[in-house]
């Protein structure tokens, strides 16, 4: 009787060890960490002279297509006081609404208070999706 109980509880203990291990071994839905590279949406949907802000890990990123069709991507955190920048198609520049800071299409700070350029990211298109990757 005692042995039976011992087997029961012992089985329970072993089960409570094996269950997490088995769950752990099955790969999660998102196979890899999304902190080096993220998808930034459909490539076709990003028209020339437009930009969009997308999440990249825990910070925002901006991906834009120039009038000549080229894709560019940068960190979207303004180097002045950390506001999120946006694309201005009328100025054809990246603009920060907080204090009128402006960056050109290479991310360089060209007007207003920002002291440094925006960090650039690599952009590729894979299966119609824009993929932006941090440069290490």
């Amino acid at each position, binding site marked *: 009787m005692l042995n039976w109980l011992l087997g029961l509880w012992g089985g329970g*203990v072993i089960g409570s*060890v094996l269950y*997490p*291990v088995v*769950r*752990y*071994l*099955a790969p*999660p839905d*998102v196979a*890899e*960490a999304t*902190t*080096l590279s993220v998808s930034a949406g459909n490539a076709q949907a990003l028209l020339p002279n437009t930009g969009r802000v997308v999440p990249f890990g825990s910070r925002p990123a901006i991906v834009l297509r120039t009038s000549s069709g080229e894709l560019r991507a940068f960190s979207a955190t303004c180097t002045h006081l950390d506001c999120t920048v946006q694309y201005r198609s009328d100025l054809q520049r990246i603009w920060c609404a907080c204090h009128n800071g402006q960056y050109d299409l290479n991310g360089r700070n060209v007007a207003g208070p920002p002291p440094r350029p925006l960090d650039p990211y690599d952009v590729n298109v894979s299966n119609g999706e824009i993929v932006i990757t941090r440069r*290490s």
Partner: protein
Amino acid sequence: MTRMPLRSWLEERLPVADVIATLRHKRVPHHRYSAWYYFGGVTLFLFGVQVGTGALLLLYYRPAATEAYESVQFIVTRVPFGWLVRSIHAWSANLMVASAFAHLFSVLFLHAYRRPRELTWMSGVVLLFLTLAFGFTGYLLPWNDVSFFATRVGTDIAATLPLIGNGIVRFLRGGNDVSGATLTRLFGFHVAILPSIATALVGLHLFLVQRHGMSVPPSVERRAAGDPAAVRSMPFLPHFLLRDLFAWTAVLAVLAALSTAYPTELGTKADPFAPAPAGIRPEWYFLWAFEVLKHVPASVGGVNGEFVAVVAIGAGAAGALMLPFVAGHTVRARRVVVWAGLAALVFMCVMTGLALTSAVP
């Protein structure tokens, strides 16, 4: 009845029957100090937990400076029960070091190092050093601020040694400074080199323990009128084994509770160019040495203070290793060993306490 053919099949090929017979006859001394026998087994159990959780972590961890922190973040946030595996690995490391020290000190105070167990003692001391090395190499792997700077400070200490110091530092760091190369190198030590050496030594240590049986402390032997056979003992199977199982399961429960109630932090990703954060400390088991280095004067008799401290600690370690050969056999000599061991233990505790209380809040 189908089980019998399997058993006889096995017995024809493996010494199953011999092993079981030996275990049936094996007896473990039972006296007022025999509770300390369990610490060896607990240390072994925790080593097993480390190998198991370490192997699981290896499935998702990436040992490169650009990916290490993110892979640990991935394990802890995205992998089912990843948080549990990681926290158990970190807590079990701490418990294993504590258990290894408890095992060493109990063996010292019970004089189990004496003839014919000298090799057991020495392999054990080397295993303790390996355990500390495991802790040191593993600490860097999450690649966060604290571990980066703790590794830099820790490896700097080797530089105090003349002639070989810089060579040792470069060997440990894979370069002149702590970098991605250090991460890869320490990772190699942590998952391949140290485990192979440790496994071989554990094998030797266990074989020797099996060969010589459990040592009986001299005072117990004297009370049994010098006759080892007169000491009370219990059968290994099932008495001691069940008690061992009890201890191991209790430790498992403690591990699970600690890992759930106090999960290990991620910290912030290491930035080699940022200034060192305030209050950099190594793990608790190195704190006493860290504190000694803080208190030693800059120059002792014209020699670099840190160097003197390192040499002193090294001498202590060498003394510990060679204990069976320097300790005497008389009752008085053994008392000296007990006092020396007590002094070392108290010293380490006091230094650790000082380090903890002087820490930047």
